[in-house]
């Protein structure tokens, strides 16, 4: 434990965020308020006259003409507000804690400088100051037609963002951001960074620390908003992974730009909303260089570095750097996936890593070459040891892993598979999830999956999905929202 993490300011910020995740769902309140108003018909509540027990109070007859005038003015006022807001908005998106990390693909070009969408003066956050003045999140506009989701980020039980793109738009880049405030039932479009979603200079992922402060990033680009996505500014460098931890944000940098394979890895930390980054004391020399990513839940952050698994190179496994204190200190360990000696299974490699809300770490182990059997192995001691592997996942070739807890884990291949006994037995999800590309758990019950089936965009290396599946019972059942 370090004094950095135990700073009361950081504890308070971190604890409040955890407590906020327990806030009630907005849906019932929205329904109640709107239903109450609907029942009122044209009868307006007068300030202070609302009676929770009896409902609407009848208006005096002499008020009718006054109310007609008021309604007219109100409608015009509301329209002005909405139009003004929508003028500021163009599509946009984000990702939740507990999502898995898998090898970040691809070479890239050097980033270019510049700033983003229209920005009112004085609205962005100054270096070192996490406060955001009076800026408040924009109301939002319509979701771009044909929106495809790439990544998700939730900052509360119902409050989340999705980053993605559309196949076409008026003025490229078509990168878009959308936001939900009711757990995913409804979404609105927000301004997104003026950056493509390609790997060379674009953003593919999103993380929000609060409703106001968020990041969109890719290996060679990093953008930050401090006003709820009303405006974005480009920061220097990029990120192969970026996670919010406590009051800080940790990013994994590969340099020079476009370095894969052959990157020099660095971990950096900044205060949320700040532009000042400091290198973290992690032992990053000699790490595998064929891909890397970050994953986090609570103060546990895991950076995974993937080796070149073709050709049977025995030493090309994965190395993990694990922090249990929000990135202040790191511990290094070698490949957690091991073949089961008794069955003589093929060499195993880590394909993806995830941290569950209970801080357990799960790795998706896949066989090198063909014929082997994949498995999920879990650590409940901070990555020191991993559970014995089970061979019940079969020869499916899973691509992603998720975990609601150490016991309840998920794997994605031709469908979503769920195990409630630490990977010993698996069952196929009853939901029609055909091509899960993203699994993330916000709490031990609430998680989300992006289904990429039928939405692959030609020429895009990015898994994109039309549908977001949400569970509130640790994956026993799922509801779906599909963007059209």
């Amino acid at each position, binding site marked *: 434990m370090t004094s950095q993490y135990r700073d009361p300011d950081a504890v308070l*910020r971190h604890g409040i965020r955890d407590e906020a995740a*327990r*806030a009630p769902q907005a849906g019932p*309140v929205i329904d109640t*308020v709107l239903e109450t*108003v609907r029942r009122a018909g044209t009868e307006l509540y007068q300030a202070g006259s609302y009676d929770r027990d009896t409902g609407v109070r009848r208006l005096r007859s002499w008020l009718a003409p006054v109310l007609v005038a*008021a309604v007219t003015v109100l409608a015009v006022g509301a329209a002005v507000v909405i139009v003004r807001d929508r003028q500021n908005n163009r599509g946009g998106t984000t990702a939740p804690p507990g999502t898995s990390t898998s090898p970040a693909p691809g070479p890239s070009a050097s980033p270019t400088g510049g700033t983003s969408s229209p920005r009112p003066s004085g609205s962005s956050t100054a270096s070192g100051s996490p406060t955001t*003045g*009076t800026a408040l999140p924009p109301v939002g506009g319509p979701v771009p037609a044909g929106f495809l989701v790439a990544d998700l980020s939730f900052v509360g039980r119902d409050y989340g963002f999705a980053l993605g793109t559309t196949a076409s738009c008026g003025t490229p880049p078509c990168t878009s951001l959308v936001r939900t405030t009711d757990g995913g039932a409804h979404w609105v479009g927000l301004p997104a960074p003026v950056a493509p979603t390609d790997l060379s200079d674009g953003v593919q992922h999103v993380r929000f620390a609060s409703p106001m402060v968020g990041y969109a990033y890719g290996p060679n680009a990093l953008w930050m908003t401090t006003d709820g996505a009303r405006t974005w500014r480009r920061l220097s460098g990029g990120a192969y992974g970026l996670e919010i931890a406590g009051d800080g944000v940790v990013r994994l940098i590969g340099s020079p730009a476009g370095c894969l394979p052959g990157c020099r890895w660095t971990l950096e930390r900044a205060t949320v909303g700040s532009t000042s980054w400091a290198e973290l004391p992690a032992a990053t020399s000699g790490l595998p260089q064929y891909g890397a990513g970050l994953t986090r839940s609570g103060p546990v952050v895991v950076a995974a570095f993937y080796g070149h698994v073709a050709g049977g190179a025995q030493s090309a496994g994965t190395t993990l750097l694990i922090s249990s204190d929000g990135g202040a200190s790191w511990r290094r360990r070698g490949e957690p996936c091991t073949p089961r000696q008794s069955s003589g299974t093929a060499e195993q490699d880590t394909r993806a890593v995830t941290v569950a809300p209970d*801080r357990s770490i799960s790795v998706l182990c896949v066989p090198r070459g063909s014929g082997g059997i994949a498995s999920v192995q879990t650590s409940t001691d901070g990555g020191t040891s991993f559970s014995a592997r089970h061979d019940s996942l079969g020869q499916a070739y899973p691509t992603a892993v998720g975990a609601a807890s150490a016991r309840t884990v998920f794997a994605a291949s031709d469908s979503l598979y769920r195990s409630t006994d630490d990977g010993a037995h698996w069952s196929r999800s009853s939901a029609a999830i055909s091509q899960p590309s993203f699994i993330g758990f916000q709490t031990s019950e609430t998680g989300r999956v992006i289904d990429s089936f039928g939405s692959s965009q030609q020429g895009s290396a990015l898994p994109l999905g039309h549908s977001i599946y949400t569970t509130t019972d640790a994956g026993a059942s799922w509801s779906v929202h599909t963007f059209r």
Partner: protein
Amino acid sequence: MPDSVGFTDFVRTYTSMLLTAAYLMTGSGPAAEDLVQDTLLSLYGKWQRVAEADVPIAYVRRCLINNFVNSRRGRRGQELLLNELPETGYEPGIATGVADRDLVVRLLAELSPRSRAIVVMRFYYDLSDAAIADEVGCRPGTVRSTLSRSLAILRELMNDPPNRHGRSATVEKRAG
């Protein structure tokens, strides 16, 4: 229906955010739902005024805080509603040894309603001193001193685990 656009859109967009603030201030899901519901419905009759505000959500949040503080007026200190019984012991996390969330719940229970609002506005919404002062209805200096005092209490709590009854010496000392 009057204002079928502005009010409905606002409710759909901001209820979650208001609910989170209300939950952090009240410490209770049902109380938070009541507070948000009552605030929105009481504003419906004067929605024009809300729509014309420079920042409508700030206006509504100000009303929310006022309603919260007024509803607690005369009642002080320890009556923070809790969704669940306080944990009677610590379940050490991997790194922190102490659950930050529990510390925050205990801290908020220590504070007056207005101070709770100030802490929530700063540490959840990242608002500046001036913005908080505007929303809570006090001077920026009061915001700063409240935050400083809150951090001092938290520091005490961090060094003061609760006893088997779920009460810390710090809380008992203040209550006494």
